[in-house]
């Protein structure tokens, strides 16, 4: 049996749970209070990374590679999502000349 990494011996998994929950809540706060849609997007990235961190921590503590493969898929889907989302933001900016989400209701109709 190979040696256990020191972080797994000294830090309980619940501390990682607390860290990623706090990160997720910060991202959620940003999504709710910011008005610039690009920063809302960045806060969604923070939330995705919080979930990734929790999944990597759980996978490492269990010594299971499948959890880390899931994180790889999450990153791939996040990359595709960001590229499509930023293309949509550029399109909206071409039409409305703004990135303020309060003004996006001008698009209706």
């Amino acid at each position, binding site marked *: 049996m190979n040696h256990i990494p020191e972080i797994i011996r000294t830090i309980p998994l619940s501390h990682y749970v607390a860290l990623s929950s706090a990160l997720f809540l910060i991202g959620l706060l940003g999504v709710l209070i910011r*008005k610039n849609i690009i920063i809302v997007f960045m806060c969604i990235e923070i939330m995705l990374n919080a979930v990734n961190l929790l999944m990597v921590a759980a996978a490492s503590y269990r010594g299971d590679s499948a959890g880390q493969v899931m994180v790889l898929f999450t990153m791939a889907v996040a990359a595709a999502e960001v590229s499509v989302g*930023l293309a949509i933001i550029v399109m909206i900016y071409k039409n409305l000349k703004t990135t303020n989400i309060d003004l996006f209701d001008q698009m209706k109709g």
Partner: protein
Amino acid sequence: MDKIFYILAALTLIAAFMVVISRHPIRSVLFLVATFFLISAQYILLNAQFLALVNIIVYAGAIMVLFLFVIMFLNLSRDLERFASWMPIAAAGISVGGIGLLLLASYRGAQISTDTVGNYDSGLVEQIGEVLYRDYLFPMEVCSVLFLVAMIGIVLLNRKERELPAKLPLP
């Protein structure tokens, strides 16, 4: 070693919070890059070296370049955003606090199992590649199809429409 974890955790939370509260979009992006690097450092501490590198390449490399490119392309840096008035901020605080309490309440009764099913080299390239190409081959192919669809979608979204005349006469 445990001190390193707590220092990294505090820095991660501070950087993420600065992303939320900085008024300048470029500053937000730079703090987001810092957040991603700190999360990669956590991955290295957890012996997930492959994911640490992938995180730096994909997030801090590709995604952040996209964000910076779009911000500079849209020239957003001249009009600084004003924050919401106190009412939406209070509502957001109440929602975030409620979800935080919900998470806390669900963790209090939870039994976190720490049984080990594999070995602690599970984050190295060799083991991840073995699991990825043996058990998760089909999802990986679906992922490549997803990228193809995303690429075609972006090209279609940003295409100039030449077939239609620029201004249709209104009826």
